[in-house]
C-alpha cells in the first residue's frame, strides 16, 4: 500500500514538473520575448547611447553590447532556456535602467512614464529568475 502511495506521489510530482516545463515554454518565454522586442530592447539601446554620449564606452564596446541584446532576443525566440541563461542579463538590465533614466533626464518621457518602464524591467527580471530557477 505504501509502495503504491509512493509511486502515485512520484507520478504526480513528475506530471507537475512536466506541466511546469510546458508552461515555461508555452507561456513564460513567448511573453518575455514579446516584452523584450517591444520594450526592453529599446531601453537597452537607450542605455548604450547614453553610455556612448558620456564617454563611458567606445564604439567597439557599444557594438558588443548591441550583439548581446540581439542575442537575448534570439535566445528568447528560440525557447531554449540554456541559451537565455548563457547571456549576461544583469548587464543588459543595468543598461535598460540607465536608458530609462537618461530619457527621463532629457525630458523625453515624464518621471511617471519612467516608473512604468522601470516596472517592466523589474517584471522581466522576476520572470527571468523564474525561468532559470525552475
Amino acid at each position, binding site marked *: 500500500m505504501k509502495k503504491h502511495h509512493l509511486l502515485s506521489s512520484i507520478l504526480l510530482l513528475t506530471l507537475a514538473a512536466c506541466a511546469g516545463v510546458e508552461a515555461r515554454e508555452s*507561456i513564460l518565454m513567448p511573453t*518575455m520575448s514579446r*516584452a523584450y522586442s*517591444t520594450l526592453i530592447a529599446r531601453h537597452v539601446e537607450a542605455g548604450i547611447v547614453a553610455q556612448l554620449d558620456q564617454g563611458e564606452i567606445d564604439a567597439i564596446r557599444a557594438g558588443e553590447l548591441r550583439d548581446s541584446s540581439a542575442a537575448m532576443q534570439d535566445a528568447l525566440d528560440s525557447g531554449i532556456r540554456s541559451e537565455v541563461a548563457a547571456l549576461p542579463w544583469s548587464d543588459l538590465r543595468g543598461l535598460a535602467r540607465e536608458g530609462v533614466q537618461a530619457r527621463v533626464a532629457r525630458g523625453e518621457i515624464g518621471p511617471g512614464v519612467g*516608473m512604468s518602464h522601470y516596472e*517592466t524591467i523589474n517584471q522581466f527580471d522576476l*520572470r527571468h529568475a*523564474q525561468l532559470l530557477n*525552475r
Partner: protein
Amino acid sequence: MNLSNETVGQDFADMLRDSAERLGINLEQAPEAIRRYSAESLLRLSASVGQAGHREALQAETMNVALFSAGVAVDSGDLADRELVGNIAGGLAIGARLLAGA
C-alpha cells in the same frame, strides 16, 4: 489633448478588456493576484497623466500585467487556471505590442 485620470483609467481598462475579449476571456475570472496587480498598474498609469510619453506608459503597463500573469501561470498548479492565465498573458503581450504601432 487634456487627459484626466478617468480617461486614462478607461483607456487601460478598455485595453485589458479588448485584449481579453479577443481570446474569449473574462478578466473577472482572473485570479485575485492578477486583478490586484492590475489595480497597481492603473495607479502607476494615473501618475503619468499629462506627462511626455504617456502612451508609452499605457503600453508598458499592459506588458507589465502580461509579464506578471505569465509568472502566475507558471506557478499555478491547476491546469485550467494555467491555461486561462496563460491566455491572459499572451493576449495582453500582443495587445502591448499593437499599442507600439498605435
